[in-house]
């Protein structure tokens, strides 16, 4: 539990820092913050090893950190430096890392879904115990590729878990306007796979449901659709206040009642006998580490213009 607490704090700190940096004009491009949704990424990824795969979204910092992404190299990527995960070519939405099985954050909604299934297929064909997890949002569940992939993954019994983060909005469009269902898990029976819905802001519930889904995949039982009901406390991206299509009271209510970090804190201090001092110490330690991650990023070199032409193709054909 403490591990999950650490991970959620790591994410929250990173996102808040990134948000502030962006608003002060230090970060280029776009930024989509994961604040409020930390429990889903953490509750799922805690079951994954380095060699398992994940695909992520434009709102991917949470998944990346939860899966083992380092905050210094991520920050460097946000700052577009050569020490970033993609050498500054990708930015926030495209961070990928082979070593930790991160197949990439992705700016195109739904694009990661088949990629995760493909990674799962490769695991199955190679006979390994690896599992792939695809993160996506409610908006993505209306993309054709979502349906095609879930169907195929079911037919081939691929070791993949499809995790939907239903934060009730596809950018500015409320879920009630883009689909008639409310509980996305009801789509699972169409493909004859298990569908489970949990409170995505309760890391313990996510943990339990993900445990079952990941184990099922690992043991050859095929895919699961895990629907996590969550909420993003900030707008879709920085620049979007998030209140032109949402009720300000609703946002505040969510922040008050459903903050995943506060909820876990309550459990830790009230039920698990962890002291507040211990938690503060963790926070302080992580804050310090983030400071140095930031220093690292800011002091890293920018790519040279010639670098634009690198890495276009892979190496030569295998003999």
């Amino acid at each position, binding site marked *: 539990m403490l591990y999950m607490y650490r991970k959620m704090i790591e994410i929250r700190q990173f996102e808040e820092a990134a948000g502030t940096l962006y608003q002060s004009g230090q970060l280029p491009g776009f930024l989509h913050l994961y604040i409020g949704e930390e429990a889903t990424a953490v509750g799922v990824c805690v079951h994954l090893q380095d060699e398992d795969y994940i695909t992520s979204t434009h709102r991917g910092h949470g998944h990346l950190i939860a899966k083992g992404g380092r905050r210094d190299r991520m920050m460097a990527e946000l700052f577009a430096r050569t020490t970033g995960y993609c050498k500054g*070519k*990708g930015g926030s939405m495209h961070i990928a890392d082979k070593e930790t099985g991160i197949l990439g954050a992705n700016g195109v909604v739904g694009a990661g879904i088949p990629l995760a299934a493909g990674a799962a297929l490769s695991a199955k064909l190679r006979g390994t115990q690896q599992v792939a997890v695809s993160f996506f949002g409610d908006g993505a569940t209306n993309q054709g590729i979502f349906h095609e992939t879930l169907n195929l993954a079911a037919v081939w019994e691929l070791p993949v878990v499809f995790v939907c983060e239903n934060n009730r909005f596809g950018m500015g*469009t409320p879920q009630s306007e883009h689909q008639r269902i409310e509980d996305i898990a009801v789509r699972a029976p169409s493909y004859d796979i298990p569908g489970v819905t949990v409170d995505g802001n309760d890391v313990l519930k996510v943990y339990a449901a993900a445990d079952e889904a990941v184990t099922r995949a690992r043991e050859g039982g095929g895919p699961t659709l895990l629907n996590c009901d969550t909420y993003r406390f900030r707008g879709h991206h920085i620049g979007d206040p998030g209140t032109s299509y949402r009720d300000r009271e609703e946002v505040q209510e969510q922040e008050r009642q459903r903050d995943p970090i506060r909820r876990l804190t309550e459990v830790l201090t009230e039920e698990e006998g962890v002291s507040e001092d211990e938690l503060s110490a963790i926070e302080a330690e992580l804050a310090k580490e983030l400071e140095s991650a930031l220093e690292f990023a800011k002091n890293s070199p920018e790519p040279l213009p010639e670098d634009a032409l690198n890495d276009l193709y892979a190496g030569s054909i295998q003999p």
Partner: protein
Amino acid sequence: MWEEMQRDESVFVMGEDVGYRGGVFLATQGFIEEFGPERVIDTPLAEASIMGIALGASFRGLRPIPEVEFADFLWPAVNQLIGEAARACYGTDGKVNAPVTIRIPYGGGIRGGLFHSQNVEAIFFHTPGLKVVAPATPYDAKGLLKSAIRDNNPVVFLEHKKTYRLVRGDVPDEDYVLPIGKAEVKRPGKNITVVSYGLMIHYCLEAAEQLASEGVAQVEVVDLRTLKPLDTETVLESVKKTGKLLIVHEDNITGGVGSEIAALAADQAFDYLDAPIGRVCGPDVPTMPFAQTLEDAYMPSTQKIAEALRNLAAY
């Protein structure tokens, strides 16, 4: 769009976040309040069906304006656009038309990275049955958009997203249309012709101004405005006048619109050419790397264009 929607009841808008949000670039802000949700339709996140449904509606007497939020998200819709829309008239012996105008923000220079910066025009430029429009100024944008909406053919209407904020210009309040398929000489000159479209026109104009003030050459800037059908007449007329041609576009160089223009000039203005045809274009790497230094290396700039022009002038 507003005027067209008032003028013709069959015109309607559909796309992601176009209604209550007013569009990600606020192009349709205020529309849903005026025209109602039946004519300003928020869609689920599903480009393929947005395109297909718009198309189907257009077959049956309506004039949809589907919006694709960013060009980079267009690809699932291409099956409907190239496979169905482009063939509708041809395949039905002219009986079925597809009067659909697809509005697409495209292009880089805003640090949007790999998925918010793409140039997609070349594929549609290559597709018979489609029209492709890419205005560079607000005045042109209004006139051409109206023409596109009134046109009975599928029109891919490309809006360079960097020009949304960067370029300002006067737009008359009254109703006016500009013809699709007509380029415009934005700046006359007698020594070199530069042909371009979109954001690049503004850099070309800056470069032309530089060369004029240096006394090196009088550069004529031809704004294609429409990519398909290409205004070959205006382009050739200019090339025959100056004898030197430079083509500029942000899109990757290989197989881009510039290749066709170069071939055209080589074919039909050969005797008039005094120098090899030049091209200043994006390199052949996936648009658009994120880091500033890399994006700047990628994007053609006023400097790069001016340099190419000086070389041509000296030839």
